């Protein structure tokens, strides 16, 4: 019998031909491999969010195998001695079990929590990048909207997850959430009792939050991320202005191998950061808080950081309650309603509309694929600074009791500082950001016209001192260059224009010989020959 020869080297090619024969993949596959990615550090922020989400899915799946959301009353007899014999819900007990009696359980729980915090942080920083550089402009308004929805989905997902362990802090958070729902006019009490299956806390809310946390919201987030990325592929990346970069192209490296290798490495780094945080920094030590009981709370009850701005707005809200009578019955809108329902509503609607408002006011209907430096759009930068300041005042106020305690300030003074700051600081931030943008713009143009400041001071024969400037282009009789600003950074240091010899490689000792080459002629006019200073 003759043995059939199998040519191993030809196998992948043969397999590929077979697959293509059935799916006609050659062209679209190559097109995907050849997609060009522009390179800039600020484009990595969204990737951090994406990779944190992958870590969340991995760790969350593990946790779901051990966590039981039941609100059944049980007695704890796990290995954490201080809580042994304490009555608690099955949910809290299984969270403790997961933390102390499952190998690596605490590590994965902390990874899950840290990844969630990083996910939200990356989303916000990514949004700031997109806002301040104008990446949301036409044709990317839809992806901006998807991004905002992703933020609120992440917010909801985080809150549900935070509530699940049923420790004292998560129960307190839920208690406040129920008060927020109750405060909604007309339907509040119906919605609250329907959500909680009766009176707070009831015995179904954790089961409901659980299915929301592990199926509904993650499903929505996954779907939104798919749309987000599909739109990105379809509309292609924005890029910073630069040599050869126009509104009609994208300059960078192709997806394979250049981009793929770097992004894989970056994924590993994000994963590594979460692992290190989870191992070394304790997060949400639920065993210290004890089980939730409506009568128990401690000072410094703070939610996760991304909820703190709403906690802050609730704290700063004056005691304003609307009461009125209608047909012999009393009705009211509680004070909680404004900072926790109306404010987040505004904070959703305003950014959703922003791209359209800006286009309307600037009468700009063009497609934009080149990013703007924040300094070049002072108005938008000012508005952004205003929004960030507003957020920060609320955020800091969310921890005003801790600040009051640590810095020995009156708690009431902190509240008043927050109330006043919330009104005064944002306009101030707007003004400063606007002026700083203009200043930076002016400096860019000054350098383009006069050249780089070399730091060399000369003295003219008439006794006048002046600084030598290195022009960036041909100069006219006044020493001015007629260079146009290109929307990208202008070199402002001499080593940016090659005035310095490149450093020799090597960490402790040089690994290469200094190149024996003629030093470039000094870019500034050569110093006049030194003359002996004679004493006569």
């Amino acid at each position, binding site marked *: 019998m003759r043995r059939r020869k199998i040519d191993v080297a030809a196998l992948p090619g043969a397999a590929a031909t077979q697959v293509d024969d059935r799916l006609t993949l050659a062209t679209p596959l190559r097109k995907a491999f050849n997609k060009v990615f522009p390179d800039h550090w600020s484009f990595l922020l969204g990737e951090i969010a994406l990779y944190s989400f992958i870590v969340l899915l991995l760790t969350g799946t593990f946790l779901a195998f051990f966590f039981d959301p039941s609100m059944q009353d049980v007695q704890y007899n796990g290995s954490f001695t201080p809580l042994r014999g304490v009555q608690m819900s099955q949910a809290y007990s299984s969270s403790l079990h997961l933390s102390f009696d499952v190998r690596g359980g605490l590590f994965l729980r902390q990874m899950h929590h840290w990844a969630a915090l990083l996910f939200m942080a990356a989303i916000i920083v990514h949004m700031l990048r997109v806002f301040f550089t104008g990446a949301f402009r036409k044709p990317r308004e839809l992806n901006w909207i998807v991004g905002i929805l992703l933020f609120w989905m992440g917010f909801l997902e985080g809150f549900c997850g935070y509530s699940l362990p049923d420790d004292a802090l998560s129960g307190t958070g839920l208690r406040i959430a129920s008060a927020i729902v109750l405060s909604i006019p007309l339907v509040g009490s119906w919605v609250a009792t329907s959500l909680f299956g009766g009176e707070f806390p009831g015995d179904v809310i954790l089961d409901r939050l659980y299915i929301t946390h592990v199926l509904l919201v993650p499903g929505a987030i996954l779907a939104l991320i798919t749309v987000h990325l599909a739109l990105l592929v379809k509309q292609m990346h924005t890029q910073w202005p630069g040599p050869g970069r126009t509104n009609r192209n994208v300059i960078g490296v192709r997806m394979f*191998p250049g981009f793929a290798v770097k992004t894989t490495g970056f994924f590993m780094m994000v994963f590594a950061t979460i692992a290190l945080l989870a191992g070394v920094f304790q997060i949400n030590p639920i065993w210290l808080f004890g089980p939730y009981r409506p009568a128990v709370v401690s000072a410094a009850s703070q939610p996760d950081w991304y909820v703190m701005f709403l906690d802050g707005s609730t704290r700063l809200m004056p005691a304003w309650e609307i009461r009125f009578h209608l047909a012999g019955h009393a009705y009211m809108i509680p004070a909680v309603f404004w900072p926790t329902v109306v404010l987040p509503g505004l904070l959703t609607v305003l950014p959703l509309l922003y791209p359209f408002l800006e286009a309307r006011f600037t009468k700009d209907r063009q497609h934009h694929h080149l990013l703007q430096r924040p300094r070049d759009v002072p108005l938008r930068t000012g508005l952004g600074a205003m929004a960030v300041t507003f957020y920060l005042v609320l955020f800091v106020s969310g921890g005003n009791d801790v600040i009051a305690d640590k810095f020995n300030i009156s708690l009431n003074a902190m509240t008043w500082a927050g109330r006043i700051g919330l009104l005064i600081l944002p306009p101030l931030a707007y003004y400063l950001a606007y002026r700083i943008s203009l200043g930076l713009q002016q400096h860019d143009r000054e350098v383009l016209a006069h050249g780089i400041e070399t730091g060399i001071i000369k003295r003219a024969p008439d006794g006048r001192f002046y600084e030598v400037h290195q022009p960036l282009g041909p100069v006219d009789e006044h020493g001015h260059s007629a260079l146009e600003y290109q929307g990208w950074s202008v070199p402002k240091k001499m080593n940016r224009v090659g005035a310095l010899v490149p450093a020799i490689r090597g960490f402790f000792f040089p690994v290469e010989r200094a190149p024996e080459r003629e030093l470039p002629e000094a870019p500034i006019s050569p110093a006049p020959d030194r003359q002996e200073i004679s004493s006569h």
Partner: protein
Amino acid sequence: MSRHAETEQFDVDDPRLNRFDLVREGARRDGVRIVHYEPRFPVPGTKREKRVERTVAGLFLLGGLAATAFVVGYIAWPFHYVPGANVNKLYTPVLGVTLGLTLLLFGLGIILWGKKLLPEEISVQERHGGASPRDEQRLTGATMMNMVDELGIRRRPLLRRAALLGLLPVGVVAAAPLIGGFIQDPNRGHILAKTAWRKGIQLVRDDMTPIRPEEVSIGGQMTVFPGIPEGNTNKYGDSPTLLIQLRDEDAAALRNKLAGVNQGSMWRNFVAYSKICTHAGCPASLFEQQSNILLCPCHQSQFNITDNARPVFGPATRPLPMLPITVDSNGFFVAQSDYKQPVGPGFWERPDETTQD
């Protein structure tokens, strides 16, 4: 047109073409021009290239070492909780540091590989954004309008109205079973307005023991629960109450100010307030004994206990309801009745304040 012609001219089987020529042509057909492409080390095998290679290899090997350390730590390090300071407490840090190092080293290695060993490349991709050509828009628009015409909805108003009318209840059918199961009437049993307290129910501690007046220190406070089965559990989340014995002068001040429904609710110098904050429902339980203020740690609402627990600072708008108490024939504290106002956070149809001035 010209591109088409070029495609025609390009012969993929031309033996003079090397593989990169094919790569370049593939990219060109995808609208990508590879304008700059050169190896990082034009002369292979130089000392510097070897050095970068060694560094990347070293990072991978160290990563493998850290991964091994992780596996060994994961299996061998004791992890069960043991009270006191011991190595078991280091289980999570050991996992975190070893896993973090593993991933960090691999990540660094991969990035270094990409940045130092992959060829330097600059590619330019054309952007074909914007609207579809006008003829395409027209053709698709016509196709869509034709769909409407084919259905004949415009020509047959009866059908249109009947379909709409019929679909309305169908929509409700889809929503009803999904939402209907959740709906609970807040008015049934007046769960938002009532608590577990009733006439004669004892005030008990967390361990369900009743309380005698002499067991509360002067100026002191105590959290009490209704003395019924499960009275101290989350089943009666609205019922926790603060029992306070006021100093003589404070009690006199409060007695002078007792408003509306609160009259007759005190027993001698003792007063009992709901512990559930009227703002967002947290326990308003931080008691400042000197200033007679109850502070809610969630949003810093402050209540003056010598003035009907009136809110004096923060976002709360309504006083904490007062539980009418007395002492029964056995000398234990009991409730005279339920709270006379709804306990806890406000809601739309909440009955009006009667203690308000």
